[in-house]
């Protein structure tokens, strides 16, 4: 079974994410009227295979598998998938899986592109406890931001239906908008704290050729991301930015994060 690599396991995981996405479309169309376990189980199967893939890669490398764009992306998705499964156990939160599945599927397909996973030796250049902490916490932060975006999408869907007086708002098994707003805010705070810890850990890493950190594209991008999330939280918490604008902001920032994640990595000497 030597031909069966961790990438094959991840491919199977993405197939389950895809099945969950297709099933999510039916749930959307039906207006989330039944407390549904099918989507949860599809996603759980995907996360289990995904965990297996990461474990296999980690055991091969003897370190946290966050050394190239493929590994970083799969780590981010894993954090998002696992957190979705945990949150889905809260009352009326099962449909978080229906919102998370499309993100997991589309980004999973992107991660499978061979160019994102160039072969590396058994001892990657990127190793050490502090570097692992730096990469893992930042990717977990992205996972939390991703889940916050999922919560925000649920909030916007429900808020819109309530505002335009659609019966679907009452028929759906979605939590109250107040709860969705609280969850979105909490996840953004968690992501922000993890990002802060990750970036701080990164600042303690030895500098390559003594070059200033802020000359690196990825560092500048990360600092901007940190500032944008800080602005989102401060405006919402202390300046009464309406929940709808906050939710839209969380979704937009995460979408930008996903879109620019690969590009900034590509132009970063420190992270490439």
């Amino acid at each position: 079974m030597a031909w069966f690599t961790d990438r094959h396991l991840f491919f199977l995981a993405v197939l389950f994410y895809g099945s969950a996405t297709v099933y999510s479309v039916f749930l959307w169309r039906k207006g989330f009227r039944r407390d549904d376990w099918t989507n949860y189980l599809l996603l759980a199967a995907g996360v289990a295979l995904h965990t297996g893939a990461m474990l296999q890669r980690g055991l091969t490398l003897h370190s946290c598998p966050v050394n190239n764009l493929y590994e970083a992306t799969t780590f981010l998705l894993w954090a998002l998938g696992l957190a979705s499964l945990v949150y889905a156990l809260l009352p009326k939160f099962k449909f978080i899986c229906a919102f998370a599945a499309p993100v997991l599927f589309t980004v999973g397909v992107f991660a499978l592109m061979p160019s994102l996973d160039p072969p590396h030796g058994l001892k990657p250049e990127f190793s050490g406890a502090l570097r692992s902490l730096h990469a893992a916490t930042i990717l977990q932060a992205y996972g939390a931001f991703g889940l916050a975006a999922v919560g925000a999408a649920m909030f916007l869907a429900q808020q819109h239906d309530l505002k335009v007086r659609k019966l679907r708002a009452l028929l759906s098994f979605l939590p109250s908008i107040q709860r969705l707003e609280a969850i979105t805010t909490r996840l953004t705070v968690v992501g922000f704290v993890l990002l802060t810890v990750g970036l701080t850990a990164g600042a303690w890493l030895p500098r390559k050729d003594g070059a200033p950190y802020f000359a690196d594209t990825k560092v500048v991008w990360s600092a901007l991301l940190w500032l944008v999330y800080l602005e989102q939280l401060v405006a919402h918490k202390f300046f009464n930015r309406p929940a709808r604008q906050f939710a839209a902001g969380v979704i937009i920032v995460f979408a930008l994060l996903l879109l620019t994640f690969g590009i900034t990595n590509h132009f970063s000497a420190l992270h490439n």
Partner: protein
Amino acid sequence: MSVVVIGLSHRSAPVELRERFAFAESKIPDALNQLRESGLITEGVVLSTCNRVEIYAATALAPDDRFFARVKKFFVEHHAYDGELGDELYTFAEPHSLQHLFKVAAGLDSMVIGETEIFGQLKKAYDLAFSRKHTGARLNKAFQRAFNVAKHIRTETNIQRGSVSVMSAAVELAEKIFTNLAEHEVLVIGAGETSEKTARALQSRGVKKITVTNRSSERATALAAELGQGTLTVPWDQWPEVFERIDIAVSSTAATTHILDRAKLEPLMRRRKNRPLLLVDIAVPRDINPAVSELENVYLYNVDDLKAIADEYLMLRHIELDRCNQIIAEKVTALMMQQNLR
């Protein structure tokens, strides 16, 4: 031995007739005694509610026209009724009698389809007959099965889902906006009957703090007293001031112009730091200018919106009827096969 039903309900008879044939609870055991002593039936249960008066019985006689004519005669004589009776009084023999019993238990024959009150009333009627030993193997089996089928229908279908009244729709909306109603204060504007009903519906779902305002302060005080502990009053000219602390406002005044509009609410929302606000306007003509719903975090529902929600729920219940009838048909067939095998 077979199960039969004879009775009248909101579907067949007007309220004047239903109340004429109603059985007082204390008289039910005597009526069942008389029926059993007449040799017409061997087991019996009398269900008497505001919407139906029915006798469920098990008889060893053939349930033909002659049999039903004799039971009808008893029904009429027992109530000393001397008027004319036509189709108002219906009769069912098996399998229709069992189908009817199952439908009644599941609330499918009720005025508001899917309501659950009838389940309790039927259970009470059965318990009374059972305790006085007016039931036997046949009716015990039929009633137990009816209660099981009703529970099955409740969990497997959407027949009991949703609010079919304006007040309960308002409460359901509040629960879709706020996580825990106990943490939110309600302002009741206008001390009429509708306001009271809505406030009570909110209280039944956990609301603890209510403030009442009315042009006549006496009526506001009276309603506050009716609503009990945790209810305050505020003078009519000062109600906008409490907007800072309330999250739900129910308005039902007799005002002929809007008492709340965008210009008035906008600064109040700023003072509320844009917290979500549910406005329920059940007044006709409307108390709240519809333009306020354009404001961020304001959710405005008027009586037509709530009625539309209740009607759609009712329509959904009607759609579920086919599924429920199918379940009942299967359960009745299963029960009858079981009885025939014995």
